[in-house]
């Protein structure tokens, strides 16, 4: 289908009223939030570990990661498992329901003037009609080093 040549599929989710998109190729699964085991002394945006299909996966609270206030989980809360190489991480978001194809040409680089934590994690901004979708750069969201230090 030549029309779809420049289109890529995205999973859309909401966080503090804003719509974000992640390339669906980067998403391995999406689940309701069940049990999360907190990990002591981990960074505060790390909610802990979840056990999904035989794997132990770290879960990030994306609100906290982006510097927003955490809220209690409800029935709409979802955990989106993203995969980059060998690495799998869960992102906890307010809700996630949509799956859309976005043509490459509507995605623009993020405006330089955008500020705040979430600005660092953007790949681009897509305009679909009157909707604004912030496209996430998963590598940057996941990039965090917390090396075990002994000295």
């Amino acid at each position: 289908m030549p029309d779809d040549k420049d289109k890529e599929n995205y999973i859309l989710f909401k966080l503090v009223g804003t719509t974000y998109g992640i390339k669906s190729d980067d998403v391995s699964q999406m689940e309701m939030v069940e049990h999360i085991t907190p990990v002591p002394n981990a960074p505060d945006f790390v909610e802990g570990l979840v056990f999904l299909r035989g794997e132990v996966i770290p879960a990030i609270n994306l609100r906290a990661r982006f510097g927003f206030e955490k809220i209690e989980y409800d029935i709409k809360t979802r955990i989106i498992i993203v995969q980059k190489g060998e690495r799998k991480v869960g992102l906890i978001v307010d809700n996630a329901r949509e799956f859309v194809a976005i043509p490459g040409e509507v995605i623009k680089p993020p405006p330089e003037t955008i500020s705040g934590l979430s600005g660092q994690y953007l790949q681009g901004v897509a305009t679909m009609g009157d909707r604004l979708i912030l496209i996430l750069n998963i590598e940057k969201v996941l990039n965090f080093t917390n090396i075990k230090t002994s000295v």
Partner: protein
Amino acid sequence: MGNNTEDKGLFIISEYLDDYFAECEEHITAVKRHVVSLDPSKKTEKKIIDELLRSFHTIKGLSGMVGFEEAEMLSHSMEDYFKAIRDEKITLSRDAIDNIIEGVKKLEFILAERKEGRPASDIKAFNERLKNLIEDKKIETEKEKKPVEQDTAQLNEDVLSKIKEEIKKKRQIWQFYFSPSNELVNRGINVGVIRTRLSELGEIIYAAPRILEDGGVVFEFIVATDSDESAFLSWRDDGLKWKRYEIAEKIKREKENGGAGEIADSDKFPRISTTNTVRVDLKRLDELMEMVGELVITKARLDDILRGISRYIPEQELDFFEETHMRMGRQLKNLREGIMRIRMVPIGEVFDRMRFVVLDLEREMGKKIHLEIIGENTEIDKLVVERMMDPMLHLVRNAISHGIEKEEERISKGKSKQGNIKLSAHTSGDSVVIEIEDDGRGIDAERIISKAKSKGLINEDFTLSFQERNREILNIICSTGFSTRENADMASGRGLGMTIVKNAIETLGGSLSLETEKDKGTRFIINLPLTLEIVDAFILIAGGQLFAIPQPSVKEVIEIEPEKITIMENNELILYRGEPLPVIRLSRLFNLKENYGQIIYGIIIGRGYNSVAVMVEQVITKREIVIRPITDTLVSVKGIGGATELGDGKPILILNASELLDMAMKR
């Protein structure tokens, strides 16, 4: 045989390529073992030279088969070189041994390159040099008359007993020989097709490619079948030949070839038999292990259910039920251990590599080293062996480059001229202890500590006991970017090395410790879990959260009455067996809410003066857990070694005792 390698390459299917690399590795391991025993000052036994010759001959043949020209060329030259040595046209001097070592290294290197799918490096120059050396000695390159490989390899006991078994079952045993050719390939017949046909015919008991002296290849199969010859008569046109297997003759021949004598020889020069081993991809074993892991979890769930419903079941039925349930538990345990055993290999695999490294470094650094190896038959998980290769390599290199002094220095210190390095391994409970010891200058504690102080890595006003000092030195040399050598040399690498060593060991659930004394030497002690995956663990509660701690790292679980805790400045102490023992609250280490009751539980970890009681709210039970490593940097925090799950889908964090100990000491 060089000009028809390309054609032969047609027959290669990836299955054989894996076998090829595995077999080459085995031969190279054997070669190294023999090369290490070469000594210019003594007369080398002809048998060793023959063994070496045969190994290179086989590698040559195999390489030709897979069309890997560089390896074929190089092993060919090496074979010729050994022939010249055997025929005493070249003396086995120090130089000659150097050439051999270089050749083995090059061969190993290009094999590794190929394995990784890269083109092989150019070895022509070296090859030419070797050839010239042989030419100079005017070696006649006459072909050997008899083929090195007989029509049938000597079958080992396992295969023979299997054959006898099948004969008892009144099955027919046939030997098939398949000679591949281009014509057959064009008709779609290759060894894979033949193998499938034969396995449909009956059971393939034995299969091996053999190399003929002219460079051709024949695949030999021994098949047990219920069908008679009519079932495969038509295969005659497909490059297959066959004959009935004569067991009496075989056994006789084995005896004639010196059954007893052979055994004595193989005792002396252990050789990896390629016929009585099955190569299994570790991944398949992992899958199997995972399945067993799931079974263990399911069984645990069953335990819980049984506990819940037991009061509703009539006593007699319950007894019967519980008995069966327990038997299942035992069987599960046996199954698990059986799979574990498959994964176990002797640590000698690593030690043998070290022999070669020592030999190589001796040469490079001009130091004489005596290497002592103890406990090379100690078995350990295959994965652990693989992962330990690099760390061991690093420690041995360090020992030689930094530890062992130069000859003059040793003499002036009243030591033997030769440096001594000892590698040892033994099993201790659920762990394997590997020690790397040298009698060199020891780690200069003062220098390291003063350097660490100047870098601000440790406090200026530290006074340390011997043990603390050792621990501190280890911590410092393992911290990133620490190296006391301004010009770190090639062998020992840069400051990052020890960090990587420590991480590699800890990733495997092990620990590293150190003992060093000035001018006496240094000993690194590596403690590794015998098996991975599953351990007995205590399940406990701290800060309202469940944790698990592997039983092997727990010395004892005690009950502590809160009023018996003595507070001393920032420390809490109890009396344990008449000695003061520091206690540390897990809730404080982990910043959890405290919720201790009337009785506090103390989990004693560590050894001797290095012990501590970790205080927790409750110890619930002891049970088997499946360890799942936590590797993501987001959640790798100190004191946590992994996660497990008890059957309810909730991850439970597994405590790492040695890290907890570290945290307790540093607090």
